[in-house]
Every structure is written in C-alpha cells, then in structure tokens.
C-alpha cells in the first residue's frame, strides 16, 4: 500500500515506571515489597530501594536519551510514578529497534499503541 494512502495515524506511548518492571530477572525483586505496609522495616531494605532507584532512574534516562536521539518530536509527561513519552510521527517498531540495539528490552517499559483516523476518514 502506498504510504501516501495511509488512512490512520499511529500514536506510540512509552511508559517508564519508576518502581515497576514487567519482568523481574533472577535476583531482582520489587523494591517496595519489603517496605510498604511492613512492620519493622529493615535499613538494608531502604538501601536496596535506594540502589534500585538509582539504577532504575539512570536506565530510564538512558532510554529517554536513545528515543530523543532517533526522533525529536516527543511529548514527554512526568507523573508521580512514571514518565511517558508519546509521538505520532515515529513508528513504534523503529523506536523498539533503537532501544533493542542499546540492550533495552520490553521488560523495562510499557508500550501502548493507539490508532486514530486520518482527518476526513469515515
């Protein structure tokens, strides 16, 4: 199909959660599980949380850098528990490729894809 005849617009949203990952690798565990609603929280759990957040936020920043390098038209929104990068002018496959080349797999982010009609389409 001729790309000029595209009938839809794609919106790709990359969501980088601060405290969550999609998959926890061996040896990793959710950082807040030993803190929230836990009696007698141990100081080492807080240290683990700090260490996790340090690594996690750095990796999020690196992923943001990669996406900003391959494309410059993103809307970036900061929320209480996540950063969201959205675009309607860059295919999600290309963004995934760019992240994968740098070693970032889809367990580090949530990808949402939405389509909408191009103007005037039924």
């Amino acid at each position, binding site marked *: *199909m*001729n*790309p000029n*005849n*595209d*009938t*839809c617009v*794609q*919106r790709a*949203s990359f969501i980088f959660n601060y405290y969550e990952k*999609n998959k926890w690798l061996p040896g990793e565990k959710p950082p807040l599980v030993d803190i929230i609603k836990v009696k007698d929280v141990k100081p080492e759990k807080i240290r683990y949380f700090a260490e996790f957040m340090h690594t996690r936020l750095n990796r999020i920043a690196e992923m943001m850098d990669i996406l900003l390098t391959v494309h410059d*038209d993103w*809307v970036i*929104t900061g929320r209480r528990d996540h950063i*969201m990068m*959205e*675009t*309607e002018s860059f*295919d*999600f*496959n290309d963004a*995934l490729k760019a992240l994968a080349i740098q070693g970032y797999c*889809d*367990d580090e*982010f*949530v*990808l*949402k*894809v*939405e*389509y*909408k*009609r*191009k*103007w*005037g*389409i*039924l």
Partner: protein
Amino acid sequence: MGYVSKTKKSLTPSGSWSNLWKQEDYWATWLGITIVLLAILFWSIGNSFMNWTIIKIPIYSDYSTALSYIGSHKRTLLTLYLFFLILFSIAIKALSGEVKRFLMGFTFLFLLSVLVSVWGSWDVMKTYNVETPLLALVVGLIISNLLKIPYWLSTALQTQFYVKLGIVLMGASLPFTLIVQAGLTAFAQATIIAVATFLTIYWTGTRIFALDNRFAATLAAGGSICGVSASIAIGGAVKAEKQHVSIAISLVILWSIIMIFILPLAIRTLNIPPGPAGAWIGTSEFADAPGMAAAAAINEQAIKTFTLMKVVGRDMFIGIWCFIMAFTAVTRWDNRYAGTKPDALDVWVRFPKFVIGFFIASIIITFLAASPNVVTPKALNNNIINPIIELRNWAFIFTFLSIGLTSRLKELASVGWKPFAAFTAGVLVNIPLGYLLSVVIMGNYWITVK
C-alpha cells in the same frame, strides 16, 4: 484521501481532561445536548424559532416550484446556515483551530447540501428511487474522484463529527424504554453475526491467506464489530502494524460504500419492510455513516432500527471486544512487545462517548414526555422532536456529502488481493446471516419497533 494539516499541532498528552474538548465524540455530545435543550427552552418561552427552521422541499416536476420554495425560504436557510456555522465553529476551534478555513469549507458544503436536497425532491429522482442520501453520496463521489479536493474544503468534511451529532440528536426521537428493550435484542442478534463474521475473516485470513494474526484480527474487527472504529481500536490493542490498520480501514470504507448501494437495492427488490430493513443494515453495514446513508434511503423507521442495532447493539461494546483481543494477543499469540497487559480501564477508554449523548438526549425527552401536566405528546412532537429530527437530517446530509467527498476509490482499492479476499469472505457470511436474523427470524419484532 484525507489530508495532513499544514499547521504543526502540538500533541496533547494522553489521558488528560482535555479529551473533553479535544475529541469529536465529546463535541458531538455537547452540541447535540445543546440543540435538545435549546429546543426545549424555545418552546417553553413560547418562541417558535425551532419550527421556523424546518425546511421541507415539496416534490416537484417543474424546477420553478423548487426555486420559488427556496426563494420564499431564503431567510430560513440563512438562519439554518448561521445556526450550524456558529455551533460547528465552536467545536472546530477546540478540535483543530482552523476556523477560517472551516468557514469557507462549510459554506460550500451547506450550499451543496441545499442543492442536493432540492435535486433529491425532483419527482424523477423519486421515480427511480434515488433518495437524497444516495444522491448526496454520488455527487460527493463524482466530485472527489474527478477533482482534487482543496484544503479549505477538507476542513469542513468532518464525516465522523456530523454522523455522531446526528446520532446524538437521534436519541431525542427514541424513548429510552425502547432503547433498553430493543437494545437487548439488538445486542444478542448483532453479537451472533459479529462473532460469525469475525471468525470467518480471521480464519480465512490466517489459514488460507497466511496473514499475520494481528493483521487478520484488525481486518476481522473492521468487518464484524463496528467498522473503522473497531479496526483502529483492535489494531492498537494487539499492536498491529500501521500499514495493516490502514489497509483494514480502506477495506471497511470500500465495502461500506458498495453496501450503501447494494443493501437498499436488495431491500426494495425483496420487498422488506422498513423495520427489519433497518435492522439488517445495522448488522451488515460496516460503519455508522454509510449505514445511516443506506437506512436514510429507506425511511425514518429504518433509521431508528438501524441506530438501535448499530449503535446500541454493536458500537457500545467495542471496548469489551478490545479487552478480549488484547488478552488473546498477550496470552495466545507470539509474545512480542509483551509490555502491555490488558487493562479493564480500556473498556471505558474505548467506549464511544457520543453514545452517552445519545442516551442523555433520549432520557431528557423521555422524562419530558412522562410529564403529561407539562407537555402533551402532540406538542412535544410538533415543537421539540420534529424540529430536532429536521436538524438531524441536515447533519446527515453533511455526513453523506462528506463520505463522498473524502472517498477516493482508486486509493481505497490499492490494498492487495489477500486482505481483500479475506474481508470479502466475511461479507459473504455477514450479509446472508444478517438477513436471516433481522428479516426471517426477528422480522416480526423489528416491524413493531417505530
């Protein structure tokens, strides 16, 4: 097809309150409810403005009759034009900000609508069953396929916005009790057909034509659930490729336009009464706007049963379909981009919000009708419902012209034969099954829905 705005628009972050004024679904609701409330307000203060806006061009054999009618209603037409222009401009200002271009484009669209309405009342057209909706579509198709549509006109071709506004106004002419009762029947019937059609397209696409699962699901959704809306919703839910979603949309539009002509012709040939005819169109047409064009070519009862079947029986449940498909994609298909888990909140996110406007309009009028001390049924019909129906009919003519003016058949047809064949397999199941359920099995029920 369509166009890309020349002004670079800032992308609004998802999930914000701005959806309330950045989405056409909401604007169709706001404007529809405003019109209903205005009709009630004018009537309650004894102002006959709404009745004054009614234009009923008489059937004529001599053009001078039509010209003299238009000549004597110039002020009414001008008022109608300004009424729509003001309301639509507010919405366009919020949606795209291109009000100046819209003003030019809408002026052309309105004049063309008047011309088509006059032409559609010619007795020759009536003799050959060329109803105004079909005429509007044909005129639009001829113009768009022979000439390049200028940018300023494109801004006024808001097919979805007009049809959604029309559907919200439609709610005012349907008692809420009828929507609930007929809606359940419509849902049961539409679901049987949707499941059968979905599975046919999906199976044909994946097993016979070896299409990708996600592509086949996007095609199947477009052919079975609710047309373009379903293709884009399922396409997003299963993370289909952009090109595949584009192809599915093109096929939905292509078959929808073909069906606008085939279904009314089949209905007349088979002598099907309007109630079941509308229900059949509701199960077998692929998109709201073309379905409304086909139903409007029959009569008012067909428009009602079509709306109940399509909007209440099919459109409303798109979110649930998406949830099921997203769940299937994550659990059954290859595990690519597994980052997103199906989220029950998406059922609401994908709910077509104009349906809420349709319900609200119906509830307002139903409550009013239930207050016999306030208004008699005759006064309600004459002063509120009939003027709203007339305004709705104008919204539909804008819709039908916009369908034609935005559909370049050559571009729609360039989709490749495999997806076309898979989609067509679904059409071959959808049409006879829709006939069987709407006309043969449930025909006696739909005849009574008026």
